[in-house]
C-alpha cells in the first residue's frame, strides 16, 4: 500500500512536503518520490511538514534517516515543522534533531530558512 500525497509545494525556493498522516512503511513511496521531485526542482531546502501526521513508527524514522542521508550527499538541507511534543521528543531521543532544524510550524520554518 502506498499513501499518495499532494504534490510538493515550492515557497521561495523551499520545497514544502506535506507528509501523509501515517509515517511508516506505507509512506515509503510518497516520501521518496516527494524528495525526488524536490531534487529535480533544484530546491536547496526541503521542509518536512508534520502538521497532518498522527502516527510515526520506527520504520518511518528509518525513512526520514534515509532521506536525510541522501540530502547530505546531495548537499541539500532538510528541515521539519509542526511536530507534536511526543514526536519532537522522539526526534531528540533518536538525535535526528541534531541533524535537522525543527520549527514550530511551517511559517516559522520558511522565515528561518531564509536567514
Amino acid at each position: 500500500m502506498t499513501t499518495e500525497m499532494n504534490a510538493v509545494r515550492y515557497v521561495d525556493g523551499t520545497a514544502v512536503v506535506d507528509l501523509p498522516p501515517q509515517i511508516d512503511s506505507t509512506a515509503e513511496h510518497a516520501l521518496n518520490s516527494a524528495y525526488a521531485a524536490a531534487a529535480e526542482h533544484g530546491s536547496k531546502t526541503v521542509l518536512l511538514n508534520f502538521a497532518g501526521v498522527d502516527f510515526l513508527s520506527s520504520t518511518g524514522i528509518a525513512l526520514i534517516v534515509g532521506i536525510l542521508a541522501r540530502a547530505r550527499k546531495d548537499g541539500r538541507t532538510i528541515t521539519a515543522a509542526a511536530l507534536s511534543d511526543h514526536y519532537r521528543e522522539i526526534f531528540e531521543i533518536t538525535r535526528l534533531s541534531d541533524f535537522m532544524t525543527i520549527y514550530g510550524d511551517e511559517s516559522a520554518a520558511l522565515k528561518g530558512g531564509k536567514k
Partner: protein
Amino acid sequence: MMTLTRTFRRVIGRGDTTATSTPARPASRSRVLETAPIDIAPNDPILAYFHAGSGAVAIDELHLDSPAVTALRAAGVKLVVPLISQGELIGLLNLGRRLSDQDYSADDRRLLEKLAAQASPAVRVAQLVREQEAEVRARERINQELRVAQLIQQQFLPKTLPDLPGWQVAAFYRAAAEVGGDFYDFIDLPDGKLGLVIGDVSGHGVPAALVMATTRSVLRTEAPRLVAPGRVLERVNEFLDADIPQNMFVTCLYAVLDPRTGALRYANAGHDLPFVRRGAAVEELRATGMPLGAMPGMRYDERETTLGPGDVILLHSDGLAEAHDTTRAMFGFPRMRGLMGRLGIGVDLIDGLMDDLARFTGPAWEQEDDITLVTLARSAGVSGEHVLLEFREPSVPGSERKVMERVAAVVANVGLDAKRYERLKTAVSEAAMNAIEHGNHSDPELPVHVRVSVTGDELMVRIVDNGGGKEIPEAETPDLEAKLAGLQKPRGWGLFLIKNMVDDLRTHTTETHHTVELVMRLGEKGADR
C-alpha cells in the same frame, strides 16, 4: 450400480406415436409399448449377455433364468438393443412387436444397432450432466446445512467474557468442519454468583445445533431460579427428555462459582471431568450423572470445592482429548493433564494446549470434532494482578496500530500523564510490530497476544509472539552518523525506541515464544529525558 438401475428404468417404446397425440383415436387401441419401468438387478445374468456385445437381442429366443427377461417379456418387449459407451452398458433400447407383426429382419437389426451405436455417447453425456447436476445440488444442500448449523452455534455462544475482578477468564471454541454440538455459557446468577456451562450434544450439523440452542435456553431460564447445580441439571433433563430426538443426548457440566470466596458447586451430566490445578498438582473434579435427555427422573450428584488464590480450572469438551495423530494415537487426558501442570493461565493455557495439539497431529490434520476450552484462574494473593484487557491480533500489516489503539483505549484512565501515555503508545506499536515481523514472520495465521494489567502501581503491557528459540537482542543505541554516511542501513530503531519510552523493558524467550513486557509505573511524572 445405482446409475445402472436408473438407466434401465428408461424403456424406449417403438410404435405409432401419433396414437397418443391424437385424441380422436383411443389410446388403448394403439400399439405403443406402454410399460412400467423395468428394474434389472446388478447380478441378473442378462447383464453379462448384454455386455458381451452381441448386438440386438431377441428376448423370446433367450433361455436364461433371469427375472429381467421375464419382466421384459411381460412388458411385450421383443427386441433389446444394448446401448454401450466406452465398454460400459449405459442403457437399453427396448422394442415391442412390429406394427406388421412380422419378426425384425436382419436389416432392421443392423439399422437399430447403428442407431444404438450413435445414440449411446449422446445418452452417456446426458447421464453425466444429470449426475453432475444432482451432485451439485446435494453439495449445495450440505453446505447450506453446515452454514445454518454454524450460524445457530455462533448465535448461542457467548459474545463476551464475564468481568470478574480477581479472576482471569478465557474461552476458546473451534468448530469441526462438520460442526459438532459443543457449547459453553456464562450465566449471571443472584448474589454475584456466576454459572459456568460446558456441554456437548451427540451428533452433528443442524439437529445438534438446535438441541444445543434448546439446552442453552432451558439452562438460562432455570439456572437463576434453582441455583443448585444438581437441581438445574435435573430440570433440564426432564425438559430435554420430553423433546429431544431419539438417540440424541447432551453431556453437560454445570458449576456455580462464588467469585468472592472461590467456592465452586458443580454437577455433571456425563461430561468430561474438568481439571483443577493447585500449585503444581492437577486433579479432576468428579461428580456422576447420566447425560441429559437420555432418560427421565435422573438425579445428579452435587459436589463442592474451593478455588484458592492461584488455582486454575479448565473445562473442556472431548474434541481435544479425542483428537488423533497420523498413527491413530489419541491425544488423551494424561497428556492434557501434564500440559495443564506446566502451562500458564488464561489465553496462555489455551494457546499452549492448542499449540501442543498442532504438534501432536501434524499440519495435515483435519479437526475431527468441535474443541471447546473454558478456563478460570483466581489471582494469586491480595497484591494480585488485575487484568484490564487481553486480546489477539493477526500478524498482518496494520495490526501494530490496532494493538496500539486498543491498549490506548483501556489505559486512558489508569493515571498516566499525557506524555507517558504517548510514550507507552509508541512502545506498544513498536513491540507489536517486532512481534508481527520478527516473531511471527508476518504469518497471518499466527496471532500476537496482548495483555494489559495493573499490579499495585505498575502498569504492564505484555506482548507475546510465536517466535522463540532466538533471544531478543539487547537494545543498542543506533549509530546515526554511520547511517547518515550510508555505512549502515537506515533501519533498526524499534527496540531502542521502546527502551527509551517505558520505565522498564523485560524480555523472555522460550523455545516457542517471545514475551516482551512493557512496564510503566503509575504516579510518576513524564519528566523530560
